């Protein structure tokens, strides 16, 4: 039986405001259609949805690669694919899942939700936002397209030198990897800058930093991590590309270079990167748990602190991926301790959720079910991570399937489960449709069962001495049964994901129409219509608490603001600007740019330039001049009635 919500307290004020001023706002924030609009839109909601759909497509492709791998490994002496293809499959699988699926998917969530949660109308740099998406989409095409030419990356997702150098990996495979990631890095950096600036400057009045939703905190911390972590990867990739093509010797040990330098650089990025993936996912959980516990998140300062601390500490643990390299024991003990310390913030978050649920009244929705599954899997994966932090144990199990099990538990359980939970939770907001409960239950249990069947046996095969990244194994090693179980689990998992996908897509046509606030959520995105109008909120509210939708004063500000032109801003395509710490209103409002083809043009030029570099046709990189010209046009100071034109001033120059 479906219980209709009591919308009188929760959604009536925003709805009334929308009825009052929505007409005027639609003039300055028009809903646009058509192919031209499709290519030139800078609306954060559309871009967010595109991120998610594109990332999901890349997930399917990478997932299919995983299934082929598992089929090959189902039994000993597998003959499904040859070693060259297997190497490309697992390398592309890992690279794509992490760079092309997990991070962009979460950035897609952020793109859609952050401005809504903050009570503003768009991201700080809308054109930069669009540019970031196009670059991401093109980078994925570049990397998956390489598989067609048997030139997909084939040295693993961390491409250790010297194997990835030109001596041992001639061909385009690793050039696709280095240039693809450099290209993709542009997109990620752009997105990160956008999130930080949006969260610092474009919040609703009254929303001081200690009233910002945990999800936004997570995205902001993640974005700062991107700013600090991505450069090591970019440097490493650039160095490797130069080594391969132009004869430099950064990593050539015969010429004074150092093979371990690559490992340091990669993991300086790589470890923060896994937290870049998981922190927004934990933010999603922190958004869902209070709603379905019917109370605000417990120990808010602690969970914010845990998020910040995780971000900082994650830069001090990178060597735990290199315990077998032969580094001095003294430094290993330090990194071992740091790896254990990073566990504490994770524990804080887990027990914050548990505390919230225990002190509240749990409502077991599909989204909440995925969250419960997440907690189970994340803790299981997390505790195996703690095991790795102990140096002798890591030295025994590194590069084994025990590691594969750990990171699939924390990546799939810790990232994909919250993503799916977020999809079920915000699906009404994304699409205006409600999902089927029965479909959701089937998809969850199939996925949960399939996942555990697929990945739990890997712990055992790892302990039984099975190294990772092997395309074949003999029959007398005792690994066969565990690998067969793993493969069966992968197929079951696929079925579960198919049901999940089916459930979500089915609701698009047949799903029940959603109200504005179907779950009675506590944050501001539920004040908007489902799906939101172009202008998001009719009135920019005043946030009086951490849970504005449950706060009568915040809700009243919608009604009060109808008559206040400074809160409606109907006469200009602009958003309110507030101070960084306290959320005090600053003048003047920030003017927002209109739709523009420039992001697409710049992205396409960059893509063309990358291709020219990849193929060694260096004159072709002159196409980047198109990007420069478009950037000049983009950044040209146009005349505007508003005095300060800081809208896109700093962005897009990446």
């Amino acid at each position, binding site marked *: 039986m479906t219980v209709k919500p009591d919308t009188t307290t929760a959604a009536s004020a925003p709805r009334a405001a929308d009825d009052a001023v929505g007409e005027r706002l639609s003039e300055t924030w028009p809903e646009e259609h058509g192919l031209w609009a499709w290519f030139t839109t800078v609306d954060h909601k559309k871009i967010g949805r595109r991120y998610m759909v594109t990332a999901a497509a890349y997930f399917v492709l990478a997932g299919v690669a995983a299934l082929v791998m598992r089929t090959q490994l189902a039994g000993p002496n597998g003959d499904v694919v040859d070693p060259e293809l297997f190497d490309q499959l697992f390398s592309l699988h890992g690279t794509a899942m992490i760079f092309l699926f997990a991070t962009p998917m979460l950035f897609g969530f952020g793109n859609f939700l952050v401005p809504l949660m903050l009570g503003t109308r768009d991201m700080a740099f809308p054109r930069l936002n669009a540019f970031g998406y196009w670059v991401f989409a093109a980078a994925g095409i570049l990397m998956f397209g390489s598989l067609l030419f048997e030139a997909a990356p084939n040295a693993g997702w961390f491409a250790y030198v010297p194997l990835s150098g030109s001596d041992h990996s001639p061909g385009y495979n690793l050039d696709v990897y280095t240039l693809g990631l450099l290209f993709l890095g542009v997109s990620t*950096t752009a997105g990160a800058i956008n999130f930080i600036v949006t969260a610092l400057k474009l919040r609703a009045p009254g929303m001081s930093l200690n009233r910002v939703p945990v999800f936004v905190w997570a995205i902001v911390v993640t974005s700062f991590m991107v700013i600090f972590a991505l450069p090591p990867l970019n440097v490493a990739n650039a160095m490797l590309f130069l*080594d391969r093509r132009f004869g430099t010797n950064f990593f050539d040990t015969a010429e*004074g*270079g150092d093979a371990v330098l690559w490992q340091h650089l990669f993991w300086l990025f790589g470890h923060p990167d896994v937290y870049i993936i998981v922190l927004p996912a934990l933010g999603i959980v922190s958004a869902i748990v209070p709603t379905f516990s019917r109370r605000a998140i417990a120990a808010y300062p602690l969970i914010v602190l845990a998020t910040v601390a995780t971000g900082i500490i994650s830069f001090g643990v990178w060597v735990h991926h290199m315990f077998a390299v032969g580094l001095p024991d003294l430094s290993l003990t330090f990194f071992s301790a740091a790896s254990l310390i990073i566990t504490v913030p994770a524990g804080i978050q887990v027990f914050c959720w548990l505390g919230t649920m225990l002190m509240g009244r749990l409502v077991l929705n599909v989204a909440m079910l995925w969250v419960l599954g997440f907690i189970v899997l994340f803790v299981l994966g997390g505790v195996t991570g703690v095991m790795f932090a102990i140096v002798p144990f890591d030295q025994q199990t590194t590069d084994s399937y025990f590691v594969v099990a750990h990171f699939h538990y924390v990546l799939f359980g810790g990232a994909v489960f919250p993503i799916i939970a977020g999809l079920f939770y915000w699906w009404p907001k994304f699409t205006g449709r409600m999902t089927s409960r029965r479909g959701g239950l089937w998809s969850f249990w199939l996925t949960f069962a399939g996942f555990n069947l697929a990945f739990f046996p890997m712990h055992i095969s790892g302990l039984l001495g099975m190294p990772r990244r092997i395309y074949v194994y003999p029959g007398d090693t005792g690994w066969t049964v565990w690998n067969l179980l793993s493969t069966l689990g992968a197929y079951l998992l696929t079925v579960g994901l198919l049901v999940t996908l089916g459930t979500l897509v089915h609701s698009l046509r047949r799903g029940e129409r959603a109200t504005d606030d179907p779950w009675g959520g506590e944050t501001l995105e539920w004040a908007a219509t489902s799906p939101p109008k172009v202008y998001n909120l009719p009135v920019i509210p005043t946030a009086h608490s951490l849970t504005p939708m449950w706060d009568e004063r915040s809700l009243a500000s919608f009604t009060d603001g109808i008559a206040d032109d400074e809160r409606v801003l109907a006469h200009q395509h602009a958003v309110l600007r507030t101070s960084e710490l306290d959320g005090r209103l600053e003048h003047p409002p920030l003017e927002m740019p209109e739709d523009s083809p420039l992001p697409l043009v710049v992205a396409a030029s960059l893509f063309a330039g990358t291709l020219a570099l990849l193929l060694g046709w260096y004159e072709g990189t002159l196409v980047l001049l198109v990007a420069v010209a478009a950037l000049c046009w983009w950044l*040209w*100071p146009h005349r505007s009635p508003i*005095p*300060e034109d800081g*809208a896109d001033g*700093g962005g897009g120059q990446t």
Partner: protein
Amino acid sequence: MNAVDMRSVSRATEPEALATERPRGRTPAWWGMVLLITTEVVLFAVLLASYFFVQFTTEGPWPPGGIRTPELRLPLIMTVLLLSSSAPMAWADRAIRRGYQGQLAAGLALALLLGAAFLTLQGIEYDTKLAEFTWTSYAYGSLFYAITGFHGFHVAAGLFMIGFTLVGTLRGRYTYERHERVRQVAFYWHAIDGLWILILSSLYLSPHV
């Protein structure tokens, strides 16, 4: 419209106000540029860390393989040029806050000239150094040219931005109430200067220590 009171803006950017709550009153564009600069600074920090990592793991003399220790005369001249280009840049920035477009143009042009002189000298330096060692000469050569070349690229980008801003100035796009972009460009330019100090200390001075 609500025009911003100029006196209060300048007061809000005085050191005392900065000391209490520095980020207050900054525009989103300022933050965007700060973050962009941060990524660049981290990038150079990583490059320089790689330089020192390779140095420390190399047995024997540094620079290796008979490459001479970098001479300091030309780099110090370049340093003077680059650092002195910051002054006109700061002057231009302050000038436009008071609405003096002519001074803005003059300051930008001067910075452009000094920066171009820096790049020219760097090219001359490359001319002599490439005869001694290239980017394929040991990891040292690779790192030396990568770091200085990447910085030179940034200087060129900064020069382009200055030129771009200069064109905008000459077309009257910047006034006392509309000058945020000048501030961003100045900030970027100062950051490049600061990075050169790091590079100078690491690549040129530290082998002599």
